[in-house]
């Protein structure tokens, strides 16, 4: 270790050590002291998260770049580590989520050790720790080997976490699919590094930065990186693992996966294309933009059709990754066409949305976990009325819903607004195709946003509002305070990032300086109150004002209107005079999304089933009707199944080699020999 490693890197090491300790505690405190496991393990995890935030925040605020080496790995290649503003930013993101789940986890995980399907807890703790460690170290990696080691470690531990409740076949299947795609994706990433290493002469990132690539090879490297990292991020059409894997993992892990892990893919794309390959080309941006648009639109449309809350959230991750990619794509297009400042704006929008999504998706998954914890239900159509039983959870979940639907004054809106602003600068480009494509992408983004709002009205409305649909839901209670604290932290951050975007963008300046050698001075020029990304003339937004105004209206309105009013009376809801309403008369999630299903039919493969039970008798009388709808993913049906079938068919055919007949085997040997002799003679 060199003598002059900077404090941020030390902090990062500290965080990594804490993570390891957390794993060790869970491993050691096996049976005797389960409580010790809970608190010790999560305490260390908390420290680790705090350390990450510290390390990342420090580099980001002080604009530092610190490197270090370890005598590990290959004989001619030490482990190179480095922390710079970009990795710092992602460390902060990761650390925040880790802190949140370390608050949330102790109560939540206790549930797994109980009951019929009790699972041993140590694996959960160990792999959670290693999962976090993988991400932490991957972010500070400065050579391809270390990067890949920890990248794969992250993927692998994710697998163990997804398959944690392995008694369910769905979990096993989801985990398998996840790991398969993660593995293939990692190999593709490896190829990208391979190209860079071949041209740069070495595996360290410094050598790769110095590599002189021809446009063709640069594009190949970018393509591999994009496909590989995109698999991890869940971009369409490489997304199929995501909606399977996220729902079945324990909820705090889902939060971590959806909030942090898929962002690592974004980190990878940014790191490789802006930093290592460099010389971003607009063609790449075009691809990224198209993929991003498709991901966001399809993600939200598929989300709308889900009635499993966590699966719905998982599809929204795809949508939001799409939005992030749109920002990145715009940024690449602008940078590739020579508009550095606009490129910077796009990058800021993308990164801003990255951290936003981490926060609100983390919050939502934790909320879904809270519901699961109390009701053991993931199916929306079994919930209902939880706002009365779990008011704080409901409130926090609502914050997440508003934020993800891109509504002011929360954070999701800011980043989407920035993305819109970037897109609106499309006319600055020379190329006619780009100029027409970008507005269409913007329109799709608008459509996505509106559909997301519809989807979250459904999610929140069906789950938390109305009347409880099952008895277990009716008996639900508020979750323990630790879980609320975890969610509350994220909800608060959602609001803060929504209200203080100017400050946030200022803090992100070192990243863009590092990657694009440009910053957005104009965005913050008008003070913290006004966000003016390009100039005050072009666009401005004052989130604090909006917040204050809403609060004012709310407060004043209530003050004025309620003064002197008679006390409120409670009465039955309007039932058209038919007698009282039952919970079965409510709209279900399937019913809610029916109009949209009709409007966008063809996007899904929809199967409708109606099961009718009838009394036998001279005149059959229908006693019960069950209607259900299944939507299938075309990407799975048309993309993955054929590939899988091809492989299996090939495997089936290839069986002819192993006939079991020794003569055949001898013939193989004989023919091989003769062929080779023929070749060489």
């Amino acid at each position, binding site marked *: 270790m060199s003598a002059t490693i900077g404090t941020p890197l030390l902090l990062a090491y500290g965080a990594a050590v804490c993570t390891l300790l957390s794993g060790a505690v869970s491993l050691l405190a096996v049976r005797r002291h389960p409580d010790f496991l809970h608190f010790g393990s999560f305490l260390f995890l908390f420290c680790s998260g705090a350390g990450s935030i510290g390390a990342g925040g420090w580099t980001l605020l002080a604009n530092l770049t610190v490197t270090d080496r370890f*005598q*590990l*790995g*290959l*004989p*001619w290649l030490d482990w190179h580590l480095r922390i710079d503003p970009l990795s710092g930013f992602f460390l902060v993101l990761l650390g925040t989520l880790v802190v949140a789940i370390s608050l949330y986890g102790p109560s939540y995980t206790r549930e797994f050790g109980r009951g019929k399907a009790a699972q*041993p807890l140590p694996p959960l703790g160990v792999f959670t720790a290693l999962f976090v460690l993988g991400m932490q170290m991957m972010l500070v990696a400065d050579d391809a*080997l270390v990067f*890949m*080691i*920890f990248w*794969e*470690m992250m*993927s*692998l531990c994710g697998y163990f976490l997804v*398959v944690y409740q*392995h*008694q369910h*076949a769905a979990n*096993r299947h989801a*985990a*398998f699919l996840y*790991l*398969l795609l993660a*593995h*293939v994706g990692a*190999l*593709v990433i*490896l*190829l990208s*590094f*391979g*190209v860079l*290493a*071949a041209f740069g002469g070495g*595996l360290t990132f410094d050598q790769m930065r110095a590599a002189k690539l021809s446009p063709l090879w640069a594009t190949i490297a970018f393509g591999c990186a994009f496909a590989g990292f995109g698999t991890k991020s869940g971009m369409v059409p490489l997304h199929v693992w995501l909606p399977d894997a996220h729902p079945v993992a324990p909820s705090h892990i889902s939060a971590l996966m959806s909030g942090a892990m898929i962002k690592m893919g974004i980190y990878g794309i940014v790191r490789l294309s802006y930093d290592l390959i460099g010389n971003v080309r607009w063609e790449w941006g075009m691809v990224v933009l198209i993929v991003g648009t498709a991901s966001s639109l399809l993600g939200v449309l598929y989300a709308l059709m889900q009635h499993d809350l966590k699966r719905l959230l998982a599809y929204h991750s795809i949508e939001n990754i799409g939005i992030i990619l749109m920002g990145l794509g715009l940024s690449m297009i602008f940078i590739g066409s020579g508009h550095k400042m606009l490129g910077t704006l796009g990058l800021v929008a993308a990164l801003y949305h990255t951290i936003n999504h981490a926060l609100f998706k983390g919050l939502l998954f934790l909320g879904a976990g809270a519901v699961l914890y109390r009701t053991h239900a993931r199916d929306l159509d079994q919930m209902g009325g939880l706002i009365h039983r779990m008011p704080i959870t409901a409130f926090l979940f609502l914050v997440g819903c508003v934020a993800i639907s891109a509504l002011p004054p929360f954070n999701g809106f800011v980043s989407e607004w920035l993305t819109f602003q970037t897109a609106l600068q499309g006319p600055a480009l020379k190329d006619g195709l780009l100029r027409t494509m970008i507005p269409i992408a913007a329109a799709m983004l608008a459509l996505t946003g509106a559909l997301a709002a519809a989807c979250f009205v459904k999610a929140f409305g069906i789950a938390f509002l109305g009347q409880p649909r099952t008895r277990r839901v009716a008996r639900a209670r508020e979750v323990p305070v630790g879980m609320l604290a975890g969610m509350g932290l994220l909800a608060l951050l959602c609001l803060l990032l929504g209200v203080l975007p100017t400050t946030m963008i200022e803090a992100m300046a070192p990243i863009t300086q590092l990657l694009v050698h440009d910053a957005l001075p104009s965005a913050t020029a008008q003070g913290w109150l006004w966000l003016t990304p390009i100039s005050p003339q072009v666009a401005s937004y004052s989130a604090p004002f909006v917040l204050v105004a809403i609060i004012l209206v709310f407060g004043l309105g209530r003050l004025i209107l309620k003064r002197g009013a008679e006390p409120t009376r409670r009465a039955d809801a309007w039932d058209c005079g038919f007698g009282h309403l039952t919970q079965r008369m409510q709209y279900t999630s399937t019913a809610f999304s029916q109009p949209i299903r009709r409007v966008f039919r063809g996007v899904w493969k929809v199967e409708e089933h109606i099961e009718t039970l009838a009394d036998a008798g001279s005149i059959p009388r229908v006693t019960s009707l069950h209607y259900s709808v299944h939507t299938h993913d075309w990407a799975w049906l048309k993309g993955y199944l054929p590939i899988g079938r091809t*492989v*299996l068919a*090939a*495997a*089936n055919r*290839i*069986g002819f*080699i*192993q006939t079991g007949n*020794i003569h*055949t*085997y*001898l013939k*193989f*040997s004989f023919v*091989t*020999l003769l062929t*080779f*002799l023929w070749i*060489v*003679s």
Partner: protein
Amino acid sequence: MTLLEITLLIPLLGGLLLALVGHRPIAGWINIAVGVMTFGAALAMALEVLDHGPQLSPSRMFYIDAFNVYLVVLTAFVGLTTSIFSRPYMRHEVERGRVTSRRLRLYHAMYQCFLFSMLLALSTNNLGILWIGMELATLTTVLLVSLYRTPEAIEAAWKYFILCGVGIAQALFGTVLIYFAAETKFGAGRDDTLLWTVLHESAGGMDPAVITLAFVFLLVGYGTKVGLVPLHNWLPDAHSEGPTPMSAVLSGLLLNVALYALVRVKMLVDGSLHTNLAGNLMMGFGLLSFTVAGLFLHRQHDVKRMFSYSSIEHMGLITFGFGMGGPLATFGALLHMTVHSLTKSAIFITVGHACQLAGTQRITQIRGLIRTQPAIGWGLLLGTVAIAGFPPFGVFISEFLLLMATMKTWPWLTIPLLAGFGVAFGGLFRHMQQMVFGEPPPGQKPVEANMLPVVVHLLLVLWLGLAIPGFLSRWFEQATVLITGASPL
């Protein structure tokens, strides 16, 4: 007597001893003790090599350099750990009545003879003796494969015998041709013309035409033993029908030794031909094995058979790496030999226990291992993870290097490699998952298992994945220089 000769003698004498007392209950311990001594001697010898560099025995019969020293140690080591595993395993088999005490004696004797033959093949300086060692290894293991005397076992053993016999005969023809080439160069009447040290020094002067022909015969011959497609057909049969300790050493060691022989020959050929012919043939063979075996993984019903296909796959990859031949690829291939051997033997050990636990080798009937006996379940899981090439296990590092090297020299070949990795991974995991996870069948009971070898192996593989110790990397590097003439550093 040099340390090397001691290393060779111990298993030979141990084999003779066990031929007498191999049926006694104590035989398992004797087996272990012999293993310990062999390993100790090998280690001492390795230390000597580490201190003084390559060693040529006074009679010039044995030669230890950076390339084979680590393989000798590895062989002794895996031999030892497998013997540790074999004690409870065989006891269980005897209890179940699958093995009689006479056959137990045969087993123990043959086990040590097998180790001897491999050590002999590895350490000899004479290509003829190398061949003899390989043939001896076949002969000793044939009896082990047929140990259970079931029709399947007999059939497998017969196929193994015939196919490897034929293969090895081709190798003999190749050896004769090399001898021929050497004699042409040196003139008749010298008795050192088959010594590798001599041949290697003067490889440049040998006639290319003869050497090419010889290489074809040797490739087909030793390639059969390595398990290269389409010469591999014996391998899954032999692995699946024999006792599991034997599968562990077959997969972990014998394949390596055969490959070692092949690479030694390739070094001669490269020295003589100055073309890429040998390399290209090996690459083609390797890639074919790699992809075909990956597909075969999907269609397996028998867990040991499945992992034997995985061995074929990895051997294909290593052959591909050696065939590619740059320093990076060679280094990766050398490393891969080590980690594959450690991992695969660990897997077979675990699989052995798992099969005893479930009472069958059918994949569909092995269920819920992690519930019934977490040690076995996790062992199998982590072993599979390691062999599938996930970090931080060492297999990842070697696959990483191989892919990097491919990207550098044959970029387009990365595509089949990539597809192969994906297919193989899918094949392994889809089977492994159902065995390890899920609810166990009612009444499934834990078995006596010694997981120490597995833990040690996996820890070693983990260590190699995180950092390659200095001495080993020096050996690898020297071996790389020896094989390719350039250093990866």
